[in-house]
């Protein structure tokens, strides 16, 4: 299964296109104590649940709970008021399944070979259904902060491991210590088709056999226990066995198994064993569920789709080269019809070295098809009427939202995407009465954005977990500068700085030559010029900083061409202001003047 994934990744291995930018970690909120537990978001657009929107509404959070949602709700005297006129409030996202809060072990444990690899001790073989994730939580795990900054407020977390890593818990993505984070324990047994290394069960086949064996042994043991409990006289004492005992709630149907699948083969195998044994199950992962839609419909199980996507194949340069057209025209084999996907011939053959380009093209077409299938997976599930929640799995938190946006581009509806991030995981995890929607009485778990969360330009500004405010710094705009461009920034530039309070004019003067730029900035609202420091020109991107009186150091990034510039000023505490400008004197004049 692991190998299979690697093949897919290899086939699709191309350039990365990150949908979201990596955000700087913000450490406020941790050390500055909160002076109030009452927060009022005023005049916000509130998406209470998928498809259910309230305009210009006040949301009051008090003592960790949403207490009031009403357009004219009075603002309590002790509230921290956040004017949210330009913000959208969503329910905090719920991660269906991941290892958030459980740091990756630095060294792989159990490196020793057991005496008898055919009968290894259960811990070494990755069979630890008795392990409780609550004992493994680390509030310092960096993924907690990163997930929160991606809009996630709660997560269903399970231990790391192989076949049966242990029992999961619902955690809130905030808290000073592990106990504070735990919302509910004992949620589910996590299972995956991951064999032990160089010992039994090492293969998928063995994992399934071992699971079946464990299940049956546990069932038998349960019976023996019952008999012994009724009347121990004359019966041999049943020995304590933590592994088997941990299976009892699964046998009783009280503890669902969250079974992870990646390839479509995994999916068939897991469904087969579940139907055979009959334990309650939630299917997770589902990387290739697009190939097993009918079976999933029939099984009618709760689904958690991973947000992991393969890397997007990059457009190769050959595609644009003139040879390509020539080859494509002469090649009769490229004709297999595919909807909106590039043509791909599974049985493509070339006759000579001359056609190498065509062969390459055929491979790229195949990559494209596979990629589209993965990105379109969520849309396919939706259009087939299957409900699913999202899980973050091992995806980098910074890529999660970008991946959702890619799925939406492939047809997934925004409501279904929001449901998969909020209401559906709440339902699957039994949290509907406390999380998943913006409703009075529910936990103060919210995501506040500027612009739609599913829009490329949407930015998360605040995340509330359990009523605690976390301000998210807007990402530094990646400038999109051209590192190979050759421009001379020297001269004077007339600037227009767009701020929420209106446009401000200014003049930027840059002097000197490469490696020794100097400059100054005048802004019309402030008398006098401030020196511009740390000027760096890389390609056509000019970065510098200056001290704005009263606000601190402003970081600036501008893209220049010969006559105009555009970019941004990052003003501490106020946000990013966009800047545009035109040249008012050119380098020659400036240099002459200078000399």
């Amino acid at each position: 299964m692991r190998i299979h994934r690697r093949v897919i990744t290899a086939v699709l291995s191309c350039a990365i296109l990150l949908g979201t930018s990596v955000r700087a970690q913000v450490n406020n909120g941790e050390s500055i104590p909160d002076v109030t537990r009452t927060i009022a978001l005023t005049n916000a657009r509130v998406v209470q649940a998928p498809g259910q929107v309230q305009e210009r509404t006040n949301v009051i959070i008090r003592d960790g709970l949403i207490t009031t949602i009403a357009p004219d709700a009075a603002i309590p005297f002790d509230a921290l008021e956040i004017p949210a006129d330009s913000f959208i409030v969503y329910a905090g996202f719920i991660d269906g399944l991941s290892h958030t809060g459980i740091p990756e072990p630095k060294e792989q444990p159990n490196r020793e070979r057991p005496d008898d690899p055919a009968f290894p001790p259960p811990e070494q073989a990755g069979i630890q259904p008795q392990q409780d994730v609550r004992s493994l939580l680390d509030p310092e795990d960096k993924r907690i902060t990163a997930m929160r900054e991606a809009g996630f407020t709660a997560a269903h977390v399970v231990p790391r491991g192989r076949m049966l890593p242990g029992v999961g818990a619902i955690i809130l993505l905030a808290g000073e210590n592990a106990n504070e984070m735990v919302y509910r324990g004992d949620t589910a047994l996590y299972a995956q088709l991951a064999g032990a290394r160089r010992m039994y069960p090492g293969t998928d086949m063995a994992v399934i056999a071992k699971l079946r064996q464990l299940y049956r042994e546990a069932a038998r043991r349960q019976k023996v226990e019952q008999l012994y409990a009724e009347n121990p006289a004359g019966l041999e004492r049943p020995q304590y066995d933590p592994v088997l005992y941990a299976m009892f709630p699964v046998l009783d149907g009280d503890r669902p198994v969250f079974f992870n699948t990646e390839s479509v083969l995994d999916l068939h195998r897991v469904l087969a064993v579940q139907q055979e044994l009959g334990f309650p199950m939630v299917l997770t992962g589902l990387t290739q569920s697009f190939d097993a839609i009918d079976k999933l419909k029939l099984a009618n199980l709760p689904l958690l789709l991973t947000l992991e996507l393969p890397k997007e194949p990059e457009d190769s340069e050959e595609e644009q080269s003139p040879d390509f057209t020539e080859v494509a025209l002469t090649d009769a084999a490229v004709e297999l019809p595919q909807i909106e996907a590039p043509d791909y011939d599974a049985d493509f053959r070339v006759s000579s070295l001359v056609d190498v380009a065509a062969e390459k093209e055929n491979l790229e077409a195949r990559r494209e098809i596979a990629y589209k299938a993965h990105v379109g997976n969520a849309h396919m599930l939706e259009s087939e009427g299957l409900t699913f929640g999202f899980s973050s799995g091992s995806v980098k938190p910074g890529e999660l939202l970008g991946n959702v946006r890619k799925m939406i581009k492939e047809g997934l509806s925004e409501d279904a995407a929001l449901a998969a991030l909020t209401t559906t995981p709440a339902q699957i995890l039994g949290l509907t009465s406390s999380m998943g929607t913006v409703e009075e009485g529910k936990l103060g778990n919210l995501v506040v954005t500027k612009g739609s969360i599913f829009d490329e330009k949407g930015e998360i500004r605040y995340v509330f977990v359990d009523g605690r405010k976390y301000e998210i710094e807007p990402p530094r705009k990646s400038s999109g500068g051209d590192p190979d461009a050759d421009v001379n920034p020297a001269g004077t530039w007339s600037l227009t700085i767009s701020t929420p309070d209106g446009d401000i004019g200014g003049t930027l003067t840059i002097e000197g030559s490469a490696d020794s730029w100097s400059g100054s900035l005048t802004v019309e609202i402030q008398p006098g010029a401030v020196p511009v420091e740390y000027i760096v020109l890389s390609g056509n991107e000019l970065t510098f900083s200056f001290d704005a009186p009263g606000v601190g150091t402003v970081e600036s990034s501008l893209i220049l061409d010969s006559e105009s510039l555009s970019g941004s000023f990052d003003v501490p505490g106020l946000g990013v202001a966009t800047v545009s400008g035109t040249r008012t004197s050119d380098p020659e004049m400036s240099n002459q003047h200078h000399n």
Partner: protein
Amino acid sequence: MMNYLYSLLISTVLLITPPTNEAVDTITALTNARIVTITQGTIENGTIVIENGIIVQLGTDVDVPDDAQVIDLAGLTVYPGMIDSGTQMGLVEVGSLSETRDASELGDLSPQMKSLTAVNPNGVAIPVTRVNGVTTVLTVPSGGMLPGQAALINLHGYTPQQMYAGFEGVVLQFPSTGRRGQFDSRSEEDVQKAATEAIKKLNDTWDSAELHHRIDSTYQAHPEDGRRPEYVPSMEALKGVVRGEQSLIIQVNTAKDILAALDWIKARRMNNVIFSGLAEGWRVADKIAEAGVPCLVGPVLSIPTRASDRFDKAYKNAALMHEAGIKIAIRSNDTANARNLPYHVGFAAAYGLPVDAALRAVTINPAEIFGVDDRLGSLEVGKEATFFVADGDPFETSTTILHVFIAGFQVPMESRHTRLYEEFLNRNPGLEKHNGQ
């Protein structure tokens, strides 16, 4: 060892000088003195009458009561007690012994830490300092961004409360935006990033403090309408400053940081601010003067901040700031050697600070800055009898201080220095005795 020192000190105070310690109940008259009042000129051949620790009469035409204890000060001069505007007196005993250092709390946010509660009235440096004419000091906590509250204390008393001289101010170490020194090897980007984060943290903290003040005020006005606000000690401690009822002492040294601090207080609309440190204050003196922020300057006996500066920039700093029109007080920024405050002032005077301005910088100016000028800072009827008597200019090292009065108490002119001097001056008998056996 410390116990021994304490008991020695206490016995010294209790047993050796019984008559003077009761001075507060008696009437004392100091006659034939040259009186440097600071605020009302210098009086030749004047008399000061003290009753209940307060100056009740002062001048040439004074009616000395019959029951007064009279001290003839012919040929001597009386000055108001000097105020050192920056020390860690009573908080640090031996700098290299962590057990005796009580000035610094961990973390950035501990404005609720009051240095007054930590002051050790039996600190060995206290008598050492006061016998040199320094009667009152500001004792300042150190540590993170908001390390606590500084307290003005008189250098006499058995408990911190007895020593308290009527002023407490919240200390802010203004975030440093530059390198910490020539050994700071951080990259330009890291320095910049750290500075931005520090300023952001300061602003976030202040936003919180202002919100806390707003919630608290609303609640106090109508307690019946709402529930009691969260108790947040650090924000509670900043309430006075946010409301403008308490002073904020901003420690800031480099020119760039001073300008940033000026911008910050302007943006926050604060006028209850005192600057402290100001090693590069002379570079931006006009800006400080324009903002009208009083400054606690020093140490004077120091080296310039930049390699390009003239050798005497630290000596001239106070004079240049005074010339620019800033109200200055001088601090030693020392503890064990806070006794050298007069020589800091002396150097400032030698490098351009007018002598009267120099005197004011350790008397009436700090008293006004700390809002205790109704009690301290000059020799006037109605003020506390806190002064010293010298046989010359106190800024000269050759001058001897003969008497020190703190709130009417004539303090013994004893200290660890005098005891060590006495002990080792007369070693002979001990050695003779040994040889004789």
